[in-house]
């Protein structure tokens, strides 16, 4: 998540002080991503250095220093909002690796491993759904953040369900033989 661009977005509404930026950032992201004051001021200094924001007192310091976005900062924000996040290469997913690694291990039931992770993920989803259910209807920031996490976790559960079904449908005599190399292997580039 880019704190830098989130601050630019807040400043696009009008000039603000550092402390105010921190409070607004936290309230609008459902207080899911806490931000310390030091992080806010360091980021603001860099934005000022890069000409993306300007302050009413470039030499001054402290909580009473106000900031506003520059035209360059406005263009940077507009470009960032429309730039796709890095989703081209699949991430090196720890859960995928665990399930793959579990397959040939003697005495390990991969379905049981899958179920342990499925339960854990559903418990996390219950936690988030509970947060959403108890929150005010007007807390849109929280609902958006919680929904994003719920959809992400749901996708992982669906992958586990699909993996479970795929492994169940394999003939008993042909466990996923990682040693039996297929005639041609496809390679997926993954992010480190």
């Amino acid at each position, binding site marked *: 998540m880019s704190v830098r661009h989130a601050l630019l977005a807040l400043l696009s509404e009008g000039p603000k002080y550092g402390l105010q930026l921190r409070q607004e950032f936290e309230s609008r992201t459902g207080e899911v991503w806490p931000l310390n004051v030091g992080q806010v001021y360091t980021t603001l200094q860099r934005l000022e250095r890069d000409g993306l924001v300007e302050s009413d007192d470039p030499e001054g310091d402290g909580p009473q220093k106000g900031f506003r976005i520059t035209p360059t900062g406005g263009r940077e924000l507009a470009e960032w909002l429309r730039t796709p996040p890095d989703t081209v290469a699949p991430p090196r997913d720890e859960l995928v690796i665990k399930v793959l690694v579990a397959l040939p291990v003697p005495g390990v039931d991969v379905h049981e491993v899958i*179920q342990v992770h499925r*339960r854990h993920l559903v418990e996390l989803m219950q936690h988030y759904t509970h947060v959403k259910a108890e929150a005010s209807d007007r807390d849109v920031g929280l609902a958006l953040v919680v929904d994003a996490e*719920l959809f992400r976790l749901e996708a992982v559960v669906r992958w586990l369900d699909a993996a479970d079904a795929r492994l169940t449908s394999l003939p008993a005599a042909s466990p996923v033989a990682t040693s039996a190399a297929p005639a041609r292997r496809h390679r997926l580039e993954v992010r480190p």
Partner: protein
Amino acid sequence: MTAMLELRRVSKVYGSGPSRVQALCEVDLTVDGGELVAVMGPSGSGKSTLLTIAGSLEELSAGEVLVDGSALAGMTRNQRARLRRRLIGYVFQDFNLLAGLTAVENVALPLELDGLGQHAARAAGVAALDELGLADQADRFPDELSGGERQRIAIARAVVGDRRLLLADEPTGALDSVNGEAVMRLLRAACKRGVAGVVVTHDAQLASWADRVVFLRDGRAVDQTARPPGPESLLAPRPGR
């Protein structure tokens, strides 16, 4: 406290010989009033069979089912039918509302079938709609309502009168995520008022509305979640982090 629903070592077998299918195998499940339990599993895991057996719509092969402390096995057919009408409400994926009746008539119908007078049944129907915030839809026909609104009416029908066990089969399956969430909020609200709810689903988002999730696999209850944390720990770090 008596559990509203109790399944004790329930098994169900369909067919015999080579076509024999064990749909449920020694399943234990207890649901208290005020609790919403989700039963989650893939297609063919026995979810729908579990629900129909819990609702006394189907015979079991072995084990015992108790509803509000009474064993179904000791009841005559008529007694079971009466228990179904009085205590149990059903919610299906495709709503099952009667097109020729208004919302409140649909909600009041189970009470009228149970012998309650038309006026009293309508009053109870209006009360059920009102409790769920649906009073303004009372006189509308199903084809004048959206899918989400129809399912909310179906939930009101399932809890009308003194129904205390609500059984739902993929209740959000035909809805988009916003309407699905509204339906689950309503189910949760019904359970908060003391109804015992069982939802069967393959959908993790739907299941996550439950107080407890039971995982079914090949007819067996293989696992379940712990109860979710209370509101006081909502801001605490997430489990496992």
